[in-house]
Structures are given as C-alpha cells and as structure tokens.
C-alpha cells in the first residue's frame, strides 16, 4: 500500500536534505570566512531560506496542499497572506517558548529570533504546505487518530523529531567544555537541524515498515 506515496515522499525528502546540504556548502564557497559556528546566523538563514523555498516548491509541484474550494485570485491572495501571517506568528510563538525555556530575554534577542525562524521553517512551514493555513487541522493532526494520510503521518514524525532535536540541543549549553558549538543558539539550531534530517530519513522508513498496519479513516 502507498508505495507510490512513499517513493514520492522519499524523493521529496532527498531533495530537501540536498537543499540543506547545498545551503551549507554554497555559502562556504562564496563567502570568505564562512563557517557554521563562526557565522552561525548566516548559515541559519541560508538553511531556513533554502528549506522554505524548496519545500514550498516541491509541495506545490506535488500538489499535496489541500485543494481550495474557491479559485478566485482574491481568495488565493488572502490564503497567501494568511500563510505569511501564520509564519510570522509562529516565529513569535517559538521565540516566546524559547525565552520561557530560559533563553536570555534581551541580550541575544536576534539569535533567539533566528532560532525561532529556523524552527518555524522546519515545522510550521511544513504544516502550512501540507495542511494549509488552518490551525484547527494542525492541532488535529497531532493526535493519535488525527492523521488522515501518509503525508500527515510524515508531518507528525518530522515535526516531533525537529522539536525534540532542538530540545536535546539545549542540554550541552551549561557544560564547561568551552566548545564553539555550545554558544547560544548554535547547539539548539544544530540539534533542530539534525532532528529534522533524522525525521526526513525516519518518516519514509517508518511508514514503509508499518505500511501494513496503517489505516486512515477518511481521505
């Protein structure tokens, strides 16, 4: 079952992972003195930009995005506008959560916000692509019986992996090792990135191994 979808998913994920790789390599070639630790914000934004662009393009091409009932330009524009609004709100939300987790409030606000942007582009953006700007659907997806398609299950796995990765990424910060990747927010964004990549690999694999047991109620 769903072999076609799994294959599509795997190739999509390969493209996204490749875009992350390129977003790391190309600036290294172009910008003098580029490094993931040293010019962390640059890396962070280049990766977020790449993931955003590639995801939007791929999902649009694949046509996963739920079909809209109306096809007027005005409706599409408002949908686009709402998506952008949600993107921004989600950045603010992640920023707040990260600050509540103990990030400095004022000192490195830019770094914190950049991390929020990265998290948004790794998680919220995918929700936007798969489910459209519909918060209720987002909340529904993250429940045991909420997944309505293979793509929903994949969404669950990648988002969970990313968030857990960012969470685990906070662990090394208090250690006194004095490594460059312990600086805020390097370890968290690296953790989120690693979690995201793991999710990209894990989601198709998990679905492939559980394809016999997966049932979706309505599609």
């Amino acid at each position: 079952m769903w072999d076609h979808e799994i294959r599509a998913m795997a190739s999509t994920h390969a493209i996204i992972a490749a875009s992350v790789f390129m977003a790391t390599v190309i600036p290294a070639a172009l910008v003098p003195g580029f490094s993931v630790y040293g010019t962390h914000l640059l890396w962070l934004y280049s990766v977020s930009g790449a993931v955003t662009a590639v995801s939007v393009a791929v999902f649009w091409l694949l046509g996963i995005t739920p079909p809209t009932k109306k096809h007027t330009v005005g409706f599409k524009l408002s949908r686009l506008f709402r998506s952008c609004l949600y993107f921004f709100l989600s950045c603010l939300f992640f920023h707040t959560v990260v600050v509540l987790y103990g990030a400095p409030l004022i000192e490195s606000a830019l770094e914190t916000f950049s991390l929020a942007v990265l998290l948004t582009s790794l998680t919220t953006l995918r929700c936007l692509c798969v489910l459209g700007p519909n918060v209720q659907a987002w909340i529904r997806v993250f429940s045991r019986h909420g997944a309505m398609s293979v793509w929903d299950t994949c969404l669950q796995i990648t988002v969970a992996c990313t968030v857990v990765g960012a969470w685990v990424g906070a662990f090394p910060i208090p250690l006194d090792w004095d490594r460059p990747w312990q600086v805020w927010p390097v370890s968290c964004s690296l953790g989120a990135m690693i979690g995201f990549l793991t999710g990209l690999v894990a989601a198709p694999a998990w679905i492939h191994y559980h394809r016999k047991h997966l049932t979706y109620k309505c599609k």
Partner: protein
Amino acid sequence: MKGLPVLSLLLWMCAVYFVGIYLFVGGFLLVRLEVNRTSTCGDVLQPGEEPVDFCRVQPRFRRAVLLIIDALKIDFAWFDPNNTAPRPYENKLPVLEETVSSRPSHSRLYPFRADPPTTTMQRIKGFTTGSLPTFVDVGNNFASSAILEDNLIHQFGQVGKRVVFMGDDTWENLFPKKFHRSLPFPSFNVKDLHTVDNGILQHLYTTMVGDDWDVLVAHFLGVDHCGHRFGPDHPAMADKLTQMDGVIRSVIDRLHNDTLLVVMGDHGMTDTGDHGGESQKETDAAIFLYSPSPLFPGPPSQSEPDVVPQTDLVPTLALLLGVPIPYSSVGQVLLPLFPPHGQTEGAVGRLSQLEALWINAKQVNRFLETYSGMAKDIPPESLSQLKRQFSRLSSEYLSSVRAGRSPSPQLAASLQAYLTSVRDTCRATWARFNPLKMVVGLAILAFACLTCFVLSELSPALIRENAPGLTAPLVVALAAGACAAACQLLARGYVEVAWCLAAAALSSELLFLWRARRRGGTAAAVVPTDKNGSKAPKRAAWLTPCRLLIPPLLVPLLRCASLLSDSYVIAEGRAVTFLVFSLALYIPVHLNWDGLLLPPIHDPLKAAGFLPPAAPSPSTVRRESGVLLACLGLLVGSLYLSLSFHACREEQGSCQPSPFLSPLSRLQDSQLKNLHYVLSVFSLGLWTYLLRRCLRHYGNLNSSGGTAFAAHWVLPLLSVCLALHWAVSATPDDSFRNLAELIGLAQLALPRAAFCLVALGLSLIWLDPLTVFVKTRGRAGRGRASPLPPPSYRASTGISPQAELHHLIPQIYQRMRRSMDDGGGELSGAGEVDSSPAVKAYGLGTVYSAPLLLFCGLLGIGLLLLHPEGMALSFLLLLLEMGALLHIHASSTNLSSLHGTYSGGFNVPWTPVVLWSLAATQFFHATGHLPTFPSIQWGAAFVGFPDGHTGTLLPASLVTLNTFASHILFAAGCPLLLFWPLVCEVRGSRGARACGEEGEDAVMEMRLRENPQQFSSALLQLSTRYLFLLGAQVFASVCAAAILRRHLMVWKVFAPKLMFEASGFLVSSVSLLIGVSLVLRVDVAVGRWFKRLVPDASR
C-alpha cells in the same frame, strides 16, 4: 480507610532510606571536631627543670621563606641527567638537584606525601595546623572558612614574627587579618596561568631584600592551573616549571645565613592534571629544604626517611623557628634536621633529636587526651594502647634525664614509633574513606528505591490483601540486626551500630522484594479469573523498559543524570526549571495526542468506533481545556518569574544575585525600599486572600471549629504581624532615636508572636480539623441566625442523598426525617424533605483538602518569616504554581474521565507527582538557596532572637526550616494531589460511572469515604511515588559522590550537593509523613462526626 498500614509502610520506607544515607555518609564524609585550644609559650613541655619560657630561647633560624608551588609533583622535581628526551614536565627544575649534590649538608629533596582530600584549601589547612583536615571540620564558625584551630601562622603572630604573604587568595580567607602584610591574587580562574605568579614575582624580591619580614609565604598557582588546563604533558608546563626554576635560583641567591628556605608542593596531580583524590600521583608532592648555613649534620645517610608526610612540616618548622608546636598537630619532627643527642654544644638553642622528639610527643599526647575527651570517633582500644605506650616512654625518659645519663638510642626510636602510630590512628579515623560502608550504603539506597517503586505499583494489591506484609520484614530485620550485633561482639568485641542497622535494612528490603515478586507472579496468574482481568498483564509487566521510559519517568531520569555532572549541579536552578517547563508542556501535548483536549469532532465513524456512547458535551470539554491552558500559562509565568529570585554560586562567573535576596534594612535608596516593602506586603496579602478565598469558595469557613477559627483569625493576624515585623526591621537604626527601645521590643516580640500564632494555628488544625457546617432544612430560623446567611454554594454542599448516603447516611437521613416529623413542624416543610436533601453540610466536599491547604498556608507564612522580605514574592509564586499544578492535574484527570478513558480510581499518575517533586527543587533555588555551605541564610537563626542563642538546637532548626522551606511545603502538601481532582470534579463525569445514575450534586471528596480501600491505596501510592522520586535524587547524588570522589570539584560541588540532597530528603520525608498523618487525622475526625450525627439527629 486503613491508616495504620499506610503509615507503617511509609515509616518503614523512610527508615530504610535513612539507614542507607547514614551508612554512606558515615563512610564518605569524614568528620572531625576542631580543638579550639592553642599552645602557648608557657606550656611546660621540657621535663625536669623549672618551666622555661619556650619562646625566649634563641631559635635555630630567625627567618624562613616558604615557597609553595601548587601541585609541585615529586616527578617534576627529580632530575635525571641520563634522560635524553625528557617529557615536558621532566628535568625542568635542575636547581634542586644541583644544590643537593653540590651542598649536601645544606639541602635535601624529599617526596612530600599529602593526605587526602588533596585539594588546595584542605592542604593549606593541613600544613599550617599539622592536622588532618577532613571535609567537615566541625568548629564554632561554620559560616566562614577562617581557620580557628591553632596553626603556625597564629603561633608566628603570637611570638611577634612578621608574616608576609603573597599569592593564592585562599590564604587570605583562611587567615583573615593574621598577616603583617598580604598581597592576595585571585585564584578562581583556572584558565589564568600567570596573574598570581607574576603578581608574586613583582613583589617577592623587593620584599626579600627589605627587612620588614620574618616569615615569607609565597604561593604560586601557575603549575596547578597549567595542569588543570593542559595537563602535565604539555609545553606550557615546561615553560611554567622553567620559570619556577628561575624563581628558586633567585631566591637562593638572596638568602641570608639565618634564613631557612622551604620549597614545596601542596599536592601532586594525575596524568590529566587533576587532583583531590588519594592516588599516589595526587598525594606525592616534593619538598626541598635549604639554608645557606649548614642544615644537616652530614650528607644523606641510610637512616633518612624515604617520604616525608605533610603533617611533619609543622612541628619541624615550629621547633626550628622557636615557636610552640600548634595544639592539634599530629606531625612528627623531621629528625635529620636536628643534631643527635650530645652534639648540641656547638650552637645555642639547638634542640637535640631526643629533646625535639620529647617535646613533640608530649604535645601530641596532650592533643590526643583533649580530643578523646571531646569526641568518640577514635577507637577506644587503640586510644588506651597509645596512652599506655606514652606513659611508659615518658617515665623512661624522665628517669634517664633526672639521672643525668644519656638515654638509650632505642628511646628515640620508640618515641618515633609512638608518634607514627598516633598519626596512623588519626589518619584511619579522619582521612580515609570507608569503601565498605559506602558500598553498603549505596546498595541499601538502590534497593530502597526499587522497593519504593514496587510498593507504589503494588499498593492496591497490598491494601486489598488486608495485610501490608510488613510483619515478616520487620521480624527479619530485628533478627538480622541482632545477628550482626552478635557477630561483631564475637569477632571484634564491640558493636558498631551502623552495621546492625545495615543488616536490618538490607534483609528486610530483600525479603519484601522477594515476597513482592512472588506476589506479582501470583497476581498475574490469579487475575484472569478476577473480574478486572484486563489490568492483569499490565501489573505483571510493570518493570518492562517500555513502561519505564515514558516521558514522565524520563524527566526524573534526566534529573538524576544531571546530578552526576558538576556543570549541571552548578546550573541546577535553571536545569530544573527547564525540566519542569518541558514536562508541563508535555501534558497538553499528550492530552491532544490522545484526542482528549478538544471536543470530539462530529464524525460518525469515529464516534461509533472509539468513544463511549455518553460523549461529553463540547462546552464542558472546552471549559476544562480552557482551564488547563490558563493554568499552564500561570505555571509557565510563575516558572519564568521565579528565575529572577535565584542566588549565584561563585562558580557562575557573570551572574547577578537577585536584588530581593538582601534584607530591606540593607537597601539605601528609600524609594526602592518602600517599593520592595509594598510589593512584599502585597504578595503576603494576596497569599492570605487567596487561601481564604479558596476555603470560602468551598464553604469551609462556615463552620465554627478550630480550623475555621484559624482561617478567620489566626491567618490574617499572622499576616499583619509579619508585615509589621518587616516594617520594624527595615527601619534604619538611627531614624527614630526616641523610639529605639520600642523598636527593639517590637523586633523581639513581633516575630515571637508570629511563631506563637503559627504554632497555635497548626495545633488548632491538628486538634479540630473538621470544617463542616451542618444545616438542617427544617429549621430555617436557626439557619438564618447562623453567622452566615444560607450561602449560595450549591456546588459545595457535600452531602447529597443519592450518592453520599449509600451506606451510612441513609440511617441519618431517615432518623432526621423522623425527628422532624416528631418535632411538630415549626414549618410546614415536611413535604419539602422528600424532594430536596434534608441535611446540608457545607464544606463536606472539601473536608480533607481544606485543613491541609490551611496547614500549608500557615506553614508557608511561618517559613516566610525566616526569609528576607523580598522572598514574599517568590512565596506567592510558589503558591500560584502549586495551585496551577493542582488545577492542571485536576483538569487533565477530568478531561480523561469525561472521555471515559480514565481508569485509575483515585490514583495519581506519575506526571503531576514528578512535577510536584521537581517544583520543590525549583523553589529551593527560587527562594534564594543554593546547595553550598556559604549560601546558607544564617540570618534565619536570629529572627525573633536578635541577641543570639544559648543552645544550638533552636538556631539549627530555624536554619533548617529556612533552607528547606520549599521542600517542606511541597512535601506536606503532597496529598493535595490526590484530593484536587475530586474537588474540581465535573459533575456527572465520575458519578455517572460510579453510581450508574446521574448524580445531581457534587460529591467531591466524600467519594473517598465511599471507597476507603481505594483511598488508602491511592494515598499510599502517591506518597511512595513522591518518596521514590526524592529517593532517586538522593541516590543519584550519592552515586555522584561515590564515583567522582577524585574529581576536582568533589568537595566544592558534589559533597555539598550530597549533604543538601540528603538533608532535603530527611526534611521532606518528615513533612510528607506529617501531611499524610494529617489526612488520616481528618479521616478519623470525619468518621467520628458521622457517628455523632446519628445520636444528635435521633434526640
């Protein structure tokens, strides 16, 4: 309700934990009493002749230079000319070898063996007092690190020698104001290799050339810091050692004839550059002695010691410089430095070897006598043997001196042997870990944690079987204890209580576990025939990793793991907040994952398949979810704000302690002071108001019992008292001169009045915990005359005929009805009785939680009294967080029971218990405490006792109460977790399932009386879960101390953490027991009340 089994099981559990902690701490923490006597010049140490003033005699050396090179390992000091490819730390100090070979009677180089713990502070203490400093040197002044024992620096000062110090600023803390001149440099930054050394070098030579000193102490830190940073095998170490070589050369060039030079290391280092433990690499430092005038009788001979123990420096230096040996020194003079007997004629004031030994032995004997009179930790039989040895030697020596003949050379040897055996005895007592005790303590703790976990999982079965199964373990424990005592008596002749306790605890634990295992097996086998067969496989498999690695247990696991790293212990406050926040966020996510957070979507397929037919109304679900999210917001807010009340450890470099931590009287800006005061009083008022509001809401304030009295009068009065006390203590001393007496009186009276009020309130709650107000419907006239008009708390009326009067109440109800019929009916309300309940009992629904809540509230204000004023805000946050946690727990329980998926009885799941226990640690930090000794708030001992105390018990308990305030509050309030879901229950959720029909009124906590068995098992489960979480943390810190006992930070981080964790556990478990027994007390009172109601009504 079976109170006794619950309480006895908990007591047994706590006792086992205590035994484990006691054993481990006994083996790990070496404790020694400080002797506060000092030696004086008048001490009669010379035999025979009339007392000579010891210090008047011309000493061998007038001046001395002590160069202490921190971590100068003996390997660094050797020079091997054959070594062609030296490692970076080898052959870098050629000056020592050159001097020794070129001027053999002027200099010596010895290995210098330190005693563990090999940390700098303890070592400085060691080679100045001549004693064996342990981790806890119990002295008068626990708060400051100054050395109060007799020491060399003190003795130098006494005889008027000018001590000049430069280098590591630890000395300045240890000997405040003892130096003639002092140039301390900051030692804290381990990465900084040069500040201290360069600082010393700037002043060392100029000072030496001048004549303004007698003893010069210079403590270099560069080598040690280099070891910590790079390890010994690094080019930086070569540079550093070469620099030291130059320093020693220059110092030797500048020495006068009357000056002694001592170059020494305080400890060694491991191959990674660390120290602190007891391996030979860490203990073996180097000592180099040199003087321009001949120091030794001849070149090195066979009789010279191989290794010089560090304690021996003290008596040697003291006698060479002509000062009395410090009182508590246990060292032995370094004999090669003294001429043999009969060769002393050449120089004035030279003590012969035998004289020096005699003075030394006499001083050591005097110390031993004093110490054994104070403490009993030296084994008595070795003590008596040492005493016999000394008296024999002394009579021999005295007789030979009186007779004027030269004593036999054997006497010197036996004096030496005596001194050595004294030192060995002392070392065995104070300076050696007891690994066996540590291992046994660890094992007991590990098994205790396991037992606690098993107990919490098996509590329903245990209570159901009507026997807690405690008799057999107790009997076995007694037997094992007696056995251990007998064995010890037979083998060694005396009994050490620790081992009896250990045997008892371990055997009872193992027996209990074995029986539980069997019981678990039989339960799994039997249950399929039981009616709740679906739960059977779960119970059989409660130890599978799958069930143990759920997030609520993963968080405590992370917490325990974090105790093994010094960085996390240092950042503990923030780490715990992080974990609490994570677990709190997990609750709604998990609920949503189970589809419980939102009302089910109207989906025909789903509703048919997964949900019970009685789907809850969406509005109820929405309201509950709203409450949950709002409370989560409150929780998160108070978590975030609580971060701003933290204090700072010295290890946290860029950290500012909270401004609320300093008492108001220290604030200079009067406007800021007023603001702080207003804020504190506001939060105090809000604390009082919220408590009363809550009790009033549930109708508990209508009654006229002791608890209601406490809530009505004691609570507000206490707050007023506290606010006035703050105001009085914040007034500057000089502002109201004419009122000074009054202020002094108020400072004494107000806190004491508050203490009395707290005690009064708590005892009132204990004596009369019922907060129920009964109103009979038939007598509306009397109801109106009661202090409060018939309240509109319909939801709070606990008794409802349908559900509550199941077994007991129907009789009351019937009799009540009959009595009213007989009474002739002042009102024509007979018909009314049939339709609505005849008896209304206000506050019965919260009869258990109300006294407990009030208890915690009063206790909280009492504990707040011991804190600085600013902490009132933090305490308010604590209350808010407690409330938020309770509500989150209640609404998540409600949500799951609304959807019909809740199947735990009254059991409290792990998540809220974990949150509760983590919050206790979190507020330990948020009330300005830290697990370090300098951060203990000693001011708490003087609240209400501004002139100090006579005893030690009262101040110690006040400080304990202050330190563990949050532990106490959370542990005592722990049973609230059981009650709150019932207090906040949504009507028709449980009632529908319990009674099979829709209950109209809220039954709330009366449900507990309907199911006494479930009540006891849930209470037992809750408390054992809490105990398990606390015990696991203690176990983790014990493990950290045991595994990392050679870690650099063990005495700075892990050992204090262990002490705080262990005493926190002690305090928490006692308060948990108090909380549980209060609940049981309420239960007894409620039972009596029901019984009394029957005759009352029938009258």
